């Protein structure tokens, strides 16, 4: 009797683990970009040039990018680096900075907007302010 109970318990446990695995496979948590290592590390100017070339731009799609440059515009939690990299920050701006400050950020590259000639990054977080 006792061994049967243990077997049932083990089977129940195995079933629960299986259900958790299936659930996590079917409904995975979104990637946390701020905790992921950067796939590319390059300046805002270099990123803008690379993304304007569609052959080169493909490699950056959906990748985690570490980039840096001077802030050319601030609008809510959207900042522009070097006039051409538009960064959607994850969190509202808690830190004080202004136009002209040098800044480093990490975010996900969503592509090149050829209507406005801008590279767009989202889910970004601030790495450093100089």
């Amino acid at each position, binding site marked *: 009797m006792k061994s049967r109970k243990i077997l049932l318990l083990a089977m129940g446990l195995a079933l629960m683990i299986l259900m958790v695995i299936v659930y996590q496979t079917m409904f995975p948590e979104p990637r946390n970009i701020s905790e992921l290592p950067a796939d590319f590390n390059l300046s805002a100017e270099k990123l803008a040039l690379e993304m304007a070339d569609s052959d080169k*731009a493909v490699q950056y799609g959906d990748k985690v990018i570490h980039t840096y440059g001077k802030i050319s515009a601030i609008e809510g939690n959207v900042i522009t680096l070097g006039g051409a990299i538009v960064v959607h920050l994850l969190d509202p701006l808690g830190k004080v900075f202004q136009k002209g400050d040098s800044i480093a950020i990490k975010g996900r590259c*969503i*592509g*090149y907007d*050829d*209507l*406005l000639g801008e590279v767009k990054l989202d889910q970004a977080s601030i790495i450093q302010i100089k």
Partner: protein
Amino acid sequence: MDSLGNIVRKICLNGLLLGLLSIGSSHAQQRYIDRNGVVVFEASEKLFEPVKAKNESVSVIFDATDNKMASLALMRGFHFQNGLMQEHFNENYVESDLYPKALFKGEILDFDIDGADRTSQPYTIKGVLEIHGVSKEIESTVQIQKIGNILAIQGSFTVIPGEFNIKIPKIVENKIAKTVLVKLDFKLTGDHEE
């Protein structure tokens, strides 16, 4: 050097596009821009998990001198609640690496910027929508209101994935609606003082 040539050509093309949009507006400065336009699409079927995504970084340019409008949504900018669904959307359905953007170019018919005010009015918007490398003419009614320097455009239209050569696999066919409802919410700011 070839790639540099490509870049120069693209910059020239962009300049030409922006130039075309701003022709005739130099004296009046009637260009309106939204960098954070919102587009939501929904293709949910009852009883199944919602198929819904939101893009909050859509670009929109409108020139009030000729009522021409252009809008661009990067496909990777669409966020789904389910990460796996987002992955399938980008990799299998719209093939975001090959076709990274949805582009609309058209005009708002019979619109007069001077007649627009706080009262929301219906207007017809007509143009060509390009998704997944396929262009199709669309026409829809949008609500427009003007508050100071801000032009607010809201509306919705439907698209059929098959018409844009987007193939939905048989196995998930029942879980995704045949027609996709697209809602837009733009707030364009004029590049001039009122």
